């Protein structure tokens, strides 16, 4: 199950004038290569998902 983080914020209501604008970027900024530290339960979960080729939902089960 995905852990849901409860946030203590209450965003304000939309301005009447707001309309969704055209995106200024087509995709998120390029990713970079890093080396993970092979330690802990989170790394294990990451590898399990990758090795078994699972989505987050499939891995939740």
């Amino acid at each position, binding site marked *: 199950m995905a*852990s849901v983080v409860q946030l203590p914020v209450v965003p304000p209501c939309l301005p009447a004038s707001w309309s969704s604008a055209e995106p200024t970027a087509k995709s998120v900024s390029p990713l970079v290569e*890093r080396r993970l530290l092979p330690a802990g339960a989170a790394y294990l979960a990451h590898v399990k998902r990758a090795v078994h080729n699972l989505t987050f939902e499939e891995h939740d089960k």
Partner: protein
Amino acid sequence: MAVPNGTAEAPIEVSALPTVVGINFGNSYASIAEGSADCIANEDGERQIACAVAFLGEEMYIGNQAKHQLVKNSQNTITGFRNLLGKKFSEIPKDKPTASAPVIQHPEQADEPAYKVQILQAAPTPLPTTASNTPAASQTATPRSEPTPAERILTVSEVTSIFLRSLIQSAEDFLGKKVQGAVISVPAWFSEAQRAALEKAAADAGINVLQLLEEAGAAIVTSISNASAQDISADRTQLIVDLGASALELSLVSVRQGLAHSLATLSEPGVGGDAIDDKLIKFFAKEFTKKTKTPLAVAPASDVQDRRAEAKLRLAIEHTKRTISASPGAATCSVESLKDGLDYTGSINRMRFDMEVRSVYESVYTKVKELVAAAGLDLYDIDEVVYIGGSASLPGLDEHLAQGFAESVVTPFTSGTVVGGGEGDPTTILSRGCAFQAKLLAQLAEETEEEREVKRAFAYGSKWQQAKTTTKTIGMLFPEEGAEGPLGGQWIPVVLRETAVSARRTVAFEVDLGESEEKKLGFEIWEAKEGVRIEKIKPPKDEDEEADEEEEEEEIEVKEKVVGKEALLASLTLVAKEASKKNGRWSTKLEVQFVVDSDGKLDVTAWEVGKAGRGEQATVTVSSA
């Protein structure tokens, strides 16, 4: 209600888990922890066990007892062997003077470093007399002949095996069980050859090595398992400061819900406990001379007498430093017959101590700034400081570094987890992390090829350690009429920069919908520009103080983290169906999930959470580049 006899519910769990331990194997000290991550003391009651092996006559000493042999029996006392693992004799610098047994070329093995020690070999015990001996000629046993002096050659690998075996023996004595596996910590700079040599030495000692774990990894495992870590965001930037005996090791680590990668590392030899010791023994030597009028020059010492006095002082201040770390009061240093048969007892309080070793703290601070700058970050970007190593137990160091960090930074000193061997104790953090990790690895299944692949992902250089990470923080912006600041609304960061993908983050919060019956809800998804703004301001004039008029008024730096808009990726709208009205205003509970896949494709899904659970969802996808 009475439970009928014979139910098979709640059977007694027979633990099938193997007994595993974690070992912190430093160059100066080692420690060992068991599966539930408590540090184990050896038979001498030590938790920090000196990496020393000494030979005296027929006896072999290991640990702090061996270290004490450095005063009178240094030629037969072996220290500093961990850093020589996997090295050829020709690779070892010979110019450094040693206070222990010198490293020699092995007499038979080519280019192999070794040690030569003098021992006494026990003479073979006479054959036992049997009861059926007839006739009873003499009841007195043949006298045991004297042990004979001999030379023993030990390779670095053999010394390591002896030492590791004794650690495991201590654990087995404590646990009353055989140890079936261990995770051992190694420095980040350990090469493949050094790792191989350590693995071989451990195997020769009969240890089943589950993993050689990088020290930063071990520290992170402990720090994220801490109960006190719950107050701090699971997505955070950690600075790991490892101050041991001979060197300083720094790493800046991005920790994202327990998954970590290093952003930058730095090693600085010569900054550490040995440097602190130099300052401290000079201080006490001076005090000794003042008290007794006997000259004593140490660090460096020139004659034999001073050298021996120096060795004694070095041993004595181990206790002094530990007292300084543990309490703010005065700490003593006592040496019997320090020089010319004169005993010495002196004391130092924490304030004086911090003054004497200030330059060491300052070196650490300088290097921290260098590291953070190399990573393109600011000290204010650090959320948490984690300390490793004996010398990082000194509260003065944390106080010295505090000047540079944001006030909100979490350190084990500010959260009070160092004292009394708490979770943040720098001297046990590595062995504990290794113990946690050993437990995790011991539970892995190995039935299928895929399961074995998962297990192999923990080995050195596995491709699964390669990952891609985001470079900009992605989040939600809720526009607001007439909002202050450059953003024009409420900003909620969701997937932070330097998050390894694939990643999923889910947040929930209340949203204000206003008074209108339209109940429309919407937000924009942005990549953010983050930075730290530094302003120099003149401190407010103090009316009462007219004294230092001639002194130039110093400007003070005021820092603030700032967020700006970088690029709009998408926006999402939905009409609330589960809203409730309070004081004339509508509001609803929203849950939003961000998933960035391994190629960088972003899916954002939002849904209301009403009485019946999650409602209809709205989704938007930002394709990968």
